[in-house]
């Protein structure tokens, strides 16, 4: 009995070993290196000095720019996640419910943006949102003033929302799971109009899915780099772009490392808070 249990446990570890090994190599090791680097110091000339100190963190905390950066990153990610959920929800519910033979095709179309590289998608957006893009050309042709939709926060918001939406839809679809269409029928026979049945029965049952979809979209948004970088045109600053600048422009590696660790911890705290809230909301 005991032997069987331990054999099973051993085979479990063996099966998990390749994935754990890869994670250790590709995630844990770089993270530890990063954490170590964040404890180094930077000399006045910009050179990295081996050390075991928190001075880099102190330097970053003293700079009010970093606090604004944090708030901007959080609010931008919250905006993108919330919008993606609001826009993705009806689509996911439709895909979940439809009996159409085009269902698979529609699902593939909904997640197709994932098959295109982020850069290519941004360039697509530029063609639509740019000063001479689709939207502004239309505005000009009807004699209206143009609206700046790239190289600013509005552009980053649009691009980010679009880039996380496929993931949100997939998370919602997975979360709907055993949502039973009979429940809405039951509500209808008890006198509930469709909207009433939705808000009173369907929606409450999908709160866990909404919550999971939102968190995924939020995590992806806060770590997104390409979209804020390209669509912000260097005028929108978030944690990810700042880390990139510190690492590649100012070559202040301890600062880049410390900001990375900070972003990671921030996300972990938010995930914990999210889990606590979800537990209270879950029916």
């Amino acid at each position: 009995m005991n032997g069987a249990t331990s054999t099973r446990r051993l085979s479990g570890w063996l099966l998990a070993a390749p994935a754990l090994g890869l994670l250790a190599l590709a995630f844990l090791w770089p993270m530890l290196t990063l954490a170590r680097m964040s404890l180094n110091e930077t000399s006045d000339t910009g050179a990295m000095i081996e050390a075991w100190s928190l001075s880099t963190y102190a330097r970053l905390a003293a700079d009010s720019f970093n606090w604004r950066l944090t708030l901007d990153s959080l609010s931008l990610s919250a905006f993108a996640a919330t919008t993606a959920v609001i826009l993705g929800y009806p689509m996911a519910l439709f895909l979940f419910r439809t009996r159409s033979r085009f269902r698979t095709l529609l699902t593939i179309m909904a997640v197709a943006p994932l098959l295109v590289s982020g850069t290519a998608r941004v360039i697509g957006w530029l063609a639509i949102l740019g000063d001479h893009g689709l939207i502004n050309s239309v505005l000009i042709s009807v004699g209206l003033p143009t609206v700046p939709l790239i190289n600013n926060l509005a552009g980053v918001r649009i691009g980010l929302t679009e880039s996380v939406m496929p993931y949100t839809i997939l998370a919602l679809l997975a979360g709907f799971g055993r949502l039973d269409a009979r429940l809405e029928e039951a509500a209808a026979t008890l006198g509930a109009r469709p909207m009433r049945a939705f808000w009173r029965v369907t929606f409450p049952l999908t709160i866990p899915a909404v919550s999971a979809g939102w968190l995924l979209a939020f995590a992806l948004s806060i770590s997104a780099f390409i979209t804020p970088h390209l669509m912000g045109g260097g005028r929108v600053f978030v944690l990810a772009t700042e880390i990139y600048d510190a690492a590649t422009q100012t070559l202040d590696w301890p600062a880049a490392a410390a900001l990375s660790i900070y972003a990671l911890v921030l996300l972990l705290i938010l995930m914990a808070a999210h889990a606590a809230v979800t537990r209270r909301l879950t029916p």
Partner: protein
Amino acid sequence: MHLELDGLTRSYGPTTVVDDVSLAIEKGCFLALLGPSGCGKTTTLRMIAGLERPDAGRVLVGGEDITALPPYRRGLGVVFQSYALFPHMSVIGNIGFGLEMQGVARTERQRRAQAALELVGLGAHAGKRVRQLSGGQQQRVALARALTIEPRVLLLDEPLSALDAKLREELRAEMRQIQRRAGITAVFVTHDQAEALAMADLVAVMNAGRIEQLGTPETVFERPSTAFVARFVGRSARFEARLQDGRAHVAGTTLRGDGLPSGGRADIYVRPHRIRLLSRDASEDNVLDGSIASLDYTGEVMQVTVETGAGRVPVDVGTFDNAWRSLRVGQNVRLGWRAADTLSFPL
């Protein structure tokens, strides 16, 4: 007539699932739609509920044509096969849902929901979550939820099929009682003939989208109007016969029946409980000789299968007296039945 179906028809693509179904029942009647799976009984029920649109035909309740009304404006109660209870609400919340939709104030709602809960004997479980209840309790909550809105017709889709045999029989009687006491008109769908016969005032036997027979349980069982009904409801001895001069000729024997057609071919059915094993000198309208092929003891009856010249014949022997104890496989027996119990269906 309280509930009328008039030529209801529904197709999915090329298949006609419900084909010109018409019937009418009076207020307080308990109607069973009985048939094998795929016979269209559930689709018929869903069309009455408004959950499915008929391609043709009408549904009338109390003389009013409700065919075009959406389900939420029909005021009919539905108990689903899976119960479809709202998992995020308490038991009392589920039962009060219909009243909540009608805009009944909270205290009044609580009072009436509690009353409905008492009616189904679950008064003590009001605050529980649905998933804390057993299957039988969930079934009762589903029933109470449908009854609280005081529906004009109660529709039940295989309401007992998810329960085990013992509980099913208990709930059968209980549901019947609740339905009678409330004086409510009810339609319930089932594939279980015992359930249909035991519970319903009227049974509509359905096959391939059509009603084969509509009648009281006794008529449907004792006087099936088609061979399908005879086969589907209850067991039978079955013979292929050639008819001549009011007699049925079967493999060298001649069978008597009441009002047999004068010619042609027919399927002859006889119910096992109508066939008796005869003593050597007894006479009967129809007599066959044979030997016992198998014995199946079911408790209430001994099911005897007799191999005769005309084919295998099932005979139910009551276990009230002790005669059944002496039966042995291979034993030679005579069996017989009255002419009135011969059922014939022209081919």
